[in-house]
């Protein structure tokens, strides 16, 4: 018996009309065919403006496909945010008027759970993200990395089956990114959720993902899918592995020409 993919995209295209004029459209994405397996860590890399975030928004139900079908656990998404999906954005999405604890509790407000269960989940998320000493602090009192942890905790507390990460470490320094990467890997293992990561950093994708989708310049299509072959039990030390360099080199080979296209220098040598 074949298992239904957790997320499937079939012949998905996304067009945007310029200035609201339907006659003047931009083909932003597609056609894309992709299946995410249950419990895998899938990363997407691509040149700037190739539609990586658009792809994530389609999967999150924040946007609808112009053509094709996006399904989560076999059911079409069609612009409705499905239950069981959590999203962490690149920008700081913590609510500045709420304490860390209340920010995390926010994710639970729709869930019909007994108060003890809610409290348990909040404590678990606080502990998992190392936020226990800051539970009563406000986001303005925390660093950028800590605020991002609050956003991840707010997503985790709902126990999503699919976690979408839109360049979540984009605003962080390299060392914090590596450490946050370790934390995400740890969470992925503990929760068993499927993770779909959008990133522009090849090393980040190579370190975190089981599979990496490489996107072309606009209109973004998947031009290569790289299997990293990493064991499930891994952390940032994997960057020392010999094959890590080979993976990033392959990603760059696939991406170089596309990146040149995205800055208008296709076919030239720099």
């Amino acid at each position, binding site marked *: 018996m074949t298992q239904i993919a957790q997320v499937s995209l079939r012949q998905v295209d996304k067009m945007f009309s310029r200035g609201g004029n339907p006659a003047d459209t931009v083909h932003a994405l597609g056609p894309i065919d992709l299946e995410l397996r249950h419990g895998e860590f899938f990363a997407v890399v691509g040149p700037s403006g190739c539609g990586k975030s658009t792809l994530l928004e389609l999967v999150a139900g924040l946007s609808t496909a112009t053509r094709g079908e996006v399904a989560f656990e076999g059911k079409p998404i069609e612009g409705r945010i499905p239950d069981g999906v959590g999203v962490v954005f690149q920008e700081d999405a913590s609510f500045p*008027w709420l304490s860390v604890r209340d920010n995390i509790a926010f994710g639970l407000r729709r869930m019909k759970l007994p108060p003890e269960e809610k409290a348990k989940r909040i404590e678990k998320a606080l502990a998992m993200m190392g936020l226990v000493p800051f539970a009563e602090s406000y986001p*303005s009192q925390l660093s950028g990395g800590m605020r991002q942890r609050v956003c991840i905790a707010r997503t985790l507390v709902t126990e999503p089956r699919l976690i979408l990460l839109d360049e979540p470490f984009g605003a962080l320094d390299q060392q914090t990114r590596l450490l946050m990467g370790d934390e995400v890997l740890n969470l992925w293992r503990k929760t068993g959720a499927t993770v779909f990561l959008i990133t522009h950093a090849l090393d980040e994708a190579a370190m975190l993902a089981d599979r990496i989708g490489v996107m072309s310049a606009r209109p973004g299509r998947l031009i290569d899918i790289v299997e990293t072959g990493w064991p499930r039990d891994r952390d940032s030390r994997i960057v020392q592995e010999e094959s890590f360099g080979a993976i990033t080199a392959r990603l760059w080979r696939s991406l170089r020409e596309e990146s040149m296209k995205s800055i208008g220098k296709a076919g030239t040598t720099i």
Partner: protein
Amino acid sequence: MRSPLLWRLLVLAGFIGLLEALCLGGVIKPLTMQPPHKIVTDLVKMLSSGSLNGAIAKTLGNALIAFIIAMILGVTSAIIIHRLRRVRDTLEPLFATYYAIPVFAFYPLLIILLGLGDAPQIFIGAMLGIVAVIVNTLNGLDRVPNVLLKTARVNQMGPVETALRVTLPCASPYILTGAKLAVAYSLIGIIGAEFIMSSGGMGYEISFAYNNFDNATMYPLILLILVVSITINMAIARWEKALMAKRGLR
């Protein structure tokens, strides 16, 4: 940090001291103005005797109603206008010129429409405050980061829940700025209207006292209005400051 406050208090004390000296020295005649200490004692007497409690309650009650109407209608209108680009483009230039309109000139018309009771005064008070609330709320709503709206959608929140739980709390420091102005405008509207055409309230009593050279009533009432307005304003400003500090903005 405390020195600006100290300077402000010194300037105020100096001004009051100067007035006191000018009044006691006879430079300012008792018929024109009483010395500040006399104004304060008259106010205490007035409040303890309860002679003008009815007028004070009427004015402050109506100002409160006008303020609440300005806040509810102002915030609701701003949420709607913020979502409708065309409506906003049409109305925004009108907001900019709104305070050029002498609302009090419409008082006779308002009496015809709303009767002789308190309604026309409340209407003027509310109308004076509402645009300040709308403009400041719109300013706050413009500053809500898009990522918070996306977060609301990811959390499957509808427009009303998004407004109540995300956009309005996010815009609250700006809404409080509007509230500060609305308090002042509501009081101006109510007292101004009572001056023109009313048989009660602090504005009427000030006008009546003025016409009868009753400085023992007029100045304490003016002082009371100042104290009420400044106290409410300072309380809201403190709240606004606390909200901003919590967000690391001040």
